[in-house]
């Protein structure tokens, strides 16, 4: 029996991604993704990312009292304005913010209020007003309306994230040992799968993708262009947490290594996006944000990786950074008060990060409801003042140039109450 051992050179970045609990997804369109095209990266932070740690409102009189021992100390926080700062781990984001290339939306939420991870992630990814509103993801529907054009999707890993699932078919790929195209077996199996509506298309796509991904990975080191037929790719690795990721603290040595790997992941993703047929849209997810206990160390580790991925993207995109918007969001925020176990429980409003060279300089996105007790949502959470779909809609319309009517009717149907955020780019 041969146990597989992926060749580390070409595939190491995706393996590294898996070990960090990061999933990468690329989506692009045929021939439009070369240099010069507008690019969008969506980062989904899973588990309920604590907005009050991402961008602590250190100038809000309620903050220190509500958070007690897990409050970010004002002297350690990276100052943004009189009210807000960034978590000390977000050094690269802070550097971008000082150049007007990173902004925060500090009280943002999906329309879901159930505080269930699974429901809220569904709503975030489908872009619907309520759970089970659709079984396709809004990024997939974006591609649909951006068509025509032969589109192709690549999901690295075993399961495609909902945000990318839909009519525009997705393939998947993750580090493996490659397929010998001359072998008889794949052909014979394709025959056997002819009558199977699920296995047939999936297997055919798997074989195509394997060939394409090998070309793409080889092409990562400079020169160009995979032999890929056409453009849209998406990738996600199975969300696997290395055990230490969920441990409070995370040791310094681990963090250094993890940070380096995460940075590499970001710059490699950027490399994909800069290829001639590379993806124009990418989605990436980072898990491990469910900080019920031991939050201080756990979130520092996760934000360190987030910061490193974003830094890698920024650097790797180089001159293309000016054509790029990156949005980092989570399914819900966490309770404004610390709980009894050095953590926080499921809440509502959280913080989104919006970055990119395409961004206009400006203050916070949306209003800040404050942490005054009467202002808290149900006397426990940051009250959301901005519907996440409004942010997404604004980015699709103003940045990617997607037709407004299509966005309103097809991508985010049922979102009339969530006005598109304008003037971001």
């Amino acid at each position, binding site marked *: *029996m*041969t*146990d*597989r*051992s992926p060749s580390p050179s070409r595939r190491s970045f995706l393996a590294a991604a898996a070990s960090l609990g990061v999933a990468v997804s690329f989506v692009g369109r045929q021939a439009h993704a070369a240099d010069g095209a507008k690019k969008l990266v969506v980062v989904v932070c899973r588990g309920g990312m604590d907005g009050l740690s991402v961008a602590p409102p250190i100038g809000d009189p309620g903050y220190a009292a509500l958070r*007690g*021992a897990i409050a970010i100390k004002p002297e350690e926080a990276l100052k943004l304005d009189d009210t807000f700062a960034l978590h000390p781990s977000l050094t690269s984001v802070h550097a971008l913010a000082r150049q007007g290339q990173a902004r925060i939306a500090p009280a943002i939420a999906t329309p879901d209020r*159930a*505080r*269930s*991870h*699974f*429901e809220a992630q569904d709503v975030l990814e489908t872009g619907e007003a309520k759970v089970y509103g659709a079984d396709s993801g809004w990024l997939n529907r974006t591609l649909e309306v951006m068509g025509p054009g032969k589109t192709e999707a690549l*999901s690295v*890993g*075993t*399961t*495609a994230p909902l945000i990318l699932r839909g009519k525009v078919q997705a*393939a*998947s*790929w*993750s*580090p*493996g040992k490659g*397929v010998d195209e001359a072998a*008889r*077996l794949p052909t*014979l*199996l394709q*025959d*056997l*799968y002819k009558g199977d509506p*699920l*296995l047939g298309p*999936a*297997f055919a*796509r*798997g074989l195509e*993708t394997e060939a394409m991904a090998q070309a793409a990975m080889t092409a990562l080191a400079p020169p160009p262009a995979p032999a890929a037929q056409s453009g849209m790719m998406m990738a996600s690795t*199975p969300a*696997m*947490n290395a*055990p*230490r990721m*969920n*441990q409070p603290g995370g*040791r*310094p040595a681990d963090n250094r290594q993890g940070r380096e790997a995460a940075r590499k992941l970001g710059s490699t993703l950027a490399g994909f996006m800069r290829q001639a047929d590379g993806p124009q849209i990418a989605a990436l997810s980072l*898990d*491990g944000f469910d900080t*019920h*206990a031991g939050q201080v160390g756990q979130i520092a580790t996760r934000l360190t990786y987030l910061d490193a991925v974003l830094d890698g993207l920024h650097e790797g995109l180089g001159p293309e950074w000016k054509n790029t918007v990156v949005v980092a969001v989570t399914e819900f925020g966490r309770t404004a008060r*610390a*709980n*009894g*176990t050095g*953590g926080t*429980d*499921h809440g509502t409003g959280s913080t989104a990060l919006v970055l990119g060279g395409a961004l206009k300089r400006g203050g916070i996105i949306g209003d800040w409801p404050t942490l005054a007790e009467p202002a808290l949502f*149900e006397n426990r959470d940051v009250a959301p003042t901005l519907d996440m779909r409004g942010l997404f809609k604004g980015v699709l319309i103003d940045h990617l140039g997607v037709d407004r009517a299509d966005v309103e009717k097809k991508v985010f149907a049922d979102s009339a109450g969530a006005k598109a955020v304008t003037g971001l780019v």
Partner: protein
Amino acid sequence: MVDRTPYRKGEPGLSLPSKDMMAAIAATRFGLGARPGEIEAARSDPRGFLQDQVRREGADIPRDDGESTPVRYAAFADLRQERRAARQETRMVAGNDMKPIPLVDAPGANAKSDAQKDVQRYIRQKTTGDFLARAQLAADTEAAFRERWALFFANHFTVSQTKQAASIVIGPFEREAIRPHAFGRFEDMLLAASTHAAMLTYLDQAQSVGPGSPAARYQTRKGRRTGLNENLAREILELHTVGVDAGYSQADVTEFARALTGFSIGRAQDPDIGAFVFRANTHEPGARSILGKAYAQGGEDQGVAMLKALAADPRTARHVCGKIARHFVADDPPLALVKRLETRWIETGGQLDEVAKALIAAPEAWDPTPAKIKTPYEFVISTWRAVGGRPASFERLNPILTSLGQKPFYPPSPKGWPDEAGAWASPDGLVKRMQWTQGFAAAVADTRDPDALARSALGARLSEPTARAVARAETRREAFALLVMSPEFQRR
């Protein structure tokens, strides 16, 4: 291929397939794939073959080291104590220089990293041993439906290695809280799972403190902050019992979390380390109500009474029976099937052996069209079963399961592994299954008759195209790979 001979048993409009087909379905859909001879054994009475596997004393116990949760926790606590001591030493050495030195470079770092390694080694040794024993049971067992049923409930009450402190007791958790109750009352399983150290650790319950409890008042005087953690309470409602659509509110979650304060685990200094302990001094006093039902003040009894009421709630019956039907039959199961299971659940007060028998009796469960795709674990185990073998080491399982997205003991969230065909029949997953099968074939196929193997593994489910492809293959290895990758082997 499908023999649609009517086989009515008072079910107008529903016909059962032939006994040959039912024997094949019994081994593949209800079980973990046929071992040589299994379909033959089920042939005379396929339903009876399954009914006989249902037994009050519960599921089989894997032959791991048999250590109980307290034994594991005690050993782990000792190792961690050593690690702490080593770290302490490192810090003192570093402190002598009056400047911070990175831990890795500090003198004495070797002692620390040895202790650290011991902890890691212990975790690895226990989790891999537990997982291998479980996989070997699955590969060997002649009562594979019994094992599938236990695995379903282990996934229903997920505990994952994503929380390191829980990882060494996932095996004991299944042995102590799930398997003994697999065919008992759901209420007993819910109580056992909700009071087990593994669950109390995984979902943070052990540290939750009632804000108005004596312990909280004491801590506050000392300037320390303690309080509620609602993680377990929420997941019991959302995932383990009534389900997310039951209509509970945030207030219900919070009240339930308050009622559960005090549910904790014996600590290192306690005589009962690793055992369930009710800490009255951390319990939030007071009467309360959840889901419209009032509960008197009563310490431990209050939380227990709520758990019992949740177990008896008809919404729990609907939620869990829907999951059972989805797991065994189809992603979108026939409503009549769910209704049958639900009715039996309610009639018997959640008696799981009776629900299992209702599933076996239900004609909808015997539809010859296989709607489900095997999970990676089911696929890998069923391949071993097809050749009458078993995995000899954890390393035989870990790489393939990890690359197919089902890393051993690492379900991604408290919701457990997904159960939908779409989640596992991914393009990449299929290519990986094929690659692994080729390696497997190289090791086992040369000494076996592929046609006989195809018949013993699939029985009447073997389709003509697959039989033909196997018969025409160029080599035994190719024949074996075609069999294992055939649609009817991948599906169940």
